[in-house]
């Protein structure tokens, strides 16, 4: 059941052992409704407050500025749709061309269903937006700017602080999807000058189905979920108590050892690239200025889909930038934005490292990758002829 070598930590992560233990306990014993006024209800409420304090500390925010959600997708939809529909006098949104669908699709909803204009910031060949480009796209109608902190496919780091400063100067709302930044970069919402920022627990060794939205000032937004006024009135619905407890614990663990994790992961990455250099030709890395945990590899002459499937059959789990599909619309919009050719995109796999990966796993994975690549190339018309 448990995979041999899991190298898809950008897709999701296994639970941290401490998170698992807390959640298991909570599932069984902390079943009270946080809105109830007796012991197990109050206990649940306190647990949520504890988690909220952890998140606030993690982001350098106030606890009241943290809203728990069902994940970053909900957080992003809440911020983007909630702000834009409440501030309809301006109807222009700027985002980047390499955002996650959780941003892209919320913008598209506003465009198609509510008449907003959406501009897409291009990126350079490293996959990074340029602040001057952003400035040139801003108009008096610009309501909101949303740019991710770290790209999920290639790991490129975006100039969030600069964007925050520009938006603040021009009094434009700035939302940041920081899902892939958490645990990889320090995040200080005050220093970054973001108006709102999203996280998802399952990307940082927490549970799936929980996230949070930092919001500087909730009065600027409509809520997305309406009802019993949980989460200080801004996000209704009985709280996912166990999930929130797990999220809080995941963040507590992160604050303890993310620096160590990054050193470990950097070591793994360097090992991985060093071995690739020694044993494989005709490959390259997509993007630049990336976090160490993400490695987008273009392996010439074979399909990423075929390589990833062969690797998975050998117990090495990675992901790809393009599904097996004859439709070019399924090709990664991120790699397209970097100017990659269809062939390069189809030859790309994404390797993403996690804190639980070991050097032994990396050595084994490299062996398997080299062998599998060689085998597939041995009958590829692009390599043989």
């Amino acid at each position: 059941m448990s995979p041999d070598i899991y190298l898809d930590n950008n897709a999701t992560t296994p639970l941290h052992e401490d998170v698992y233990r807390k959640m298991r306990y909570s599932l069984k014993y902390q079943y009270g409704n946080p809105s109830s006024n007796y012991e197990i209800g109050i206990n649940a409420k306190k647990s949520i407050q504890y988690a909220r304090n952890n998140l606030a500390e993690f982001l350098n925010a106030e606890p009241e500025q943290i809203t728990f959600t069902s994940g970053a997708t909900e957080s992003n939809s809440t911020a983007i749709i909630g702000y834009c529909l409440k501030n309809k006098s301006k109807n222009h949104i700027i985002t980047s061309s390499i955002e996650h669908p959780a941003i892209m699709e919320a913008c598209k909803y506003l465009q198609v269903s509510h008449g907003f204009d959406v501009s897409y910031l291009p990126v350079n060949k490293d996959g990074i937006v340029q602040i001057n480009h952003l400035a040139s796209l801003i108009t008096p109608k610009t309501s909101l700017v949303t740019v991710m902190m770290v790209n999920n496919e290639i790991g490129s780091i975006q100039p969030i602080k600069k964007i925050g400063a520009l938006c603040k100067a021009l009094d434009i709302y700035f939302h940041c999807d920081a899902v892939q930044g958490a645990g990889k970069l320090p995040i200080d919402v005050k220093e970054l000058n973001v108006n709102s920022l999203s996280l998802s627990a399952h990307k940082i060794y927490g549970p799936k189905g929980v996230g949070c939205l930092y919001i500087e000032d909730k009065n600027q937004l409509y809520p997305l979920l309406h009802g019993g006024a949980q989460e200080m009135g801004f996000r209704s619905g009985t709280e996912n108590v166990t999930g929130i407890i797990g999220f809080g614990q995941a963040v507590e663990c992160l604050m303890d050892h993310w620096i160590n994790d990054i050193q470990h992961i950097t070591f793994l990455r360097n090992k991985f690239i060093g071995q690739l250099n020694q044993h494989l030709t005709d490959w390259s890395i997509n993007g630049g200025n990336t976090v160490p945990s993400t490695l987008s590899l273009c392996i010439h002459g074979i399909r990423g889909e075929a390589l990833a499937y062969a690797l998975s059959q050998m117990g090495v789990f990675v992901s790809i930038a393009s599904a097996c599909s004859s439709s070019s619309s399924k090709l990664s919009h991120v790699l397209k934005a970097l100017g990659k050719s269809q062939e390069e995109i189809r030859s790309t796999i994404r390797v993403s490292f996690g804190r639980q990966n070991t050097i032994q796993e990396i050595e084994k994975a490299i062996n398997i990758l080299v062998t599998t690549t060689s085998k597939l190339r041995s009958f590829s018309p692009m390599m043989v002829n």
Partner: protein
Amino acid sequence: MFNEIISEHFMNPRNVGKMSNPDFVIEIGNPICGDTVHMFLQVDSNSIKDVSYLSYGCSTSIATASILSEVVKGKTFNEIASYQKSDVIKWLGELEPAQNHCVDIGYNILSECAKPKQRKLTENNFLVEDGGALT
């Protein structure tokens, strides 16, 4: 996601490789997704004696080439010509929608093998670059 047949052929493709002096070559390409199969045939007057191929594509298309290579090897041209698309569907097993165009790749291999004509590979022999057209 892949059925057993596809998975097994993909992991252990039969008859792979280039052939030094093929009697015929077959070039199959999907202009949209860029999958490419180069098949090499040794024939006698009415049948295929030996077959090998090179394949660039996704798992299913590689498996398809392998499956088809086993089908045609040792068969007469008449036998090969008698197969229908429905036979290809049967050989490949159940596919997900995104993999369905491999049926066409398989059927194209079959049709070409029934009446091989081409003696040599064309100069630029695989699909590359944007637009996905054969170059």
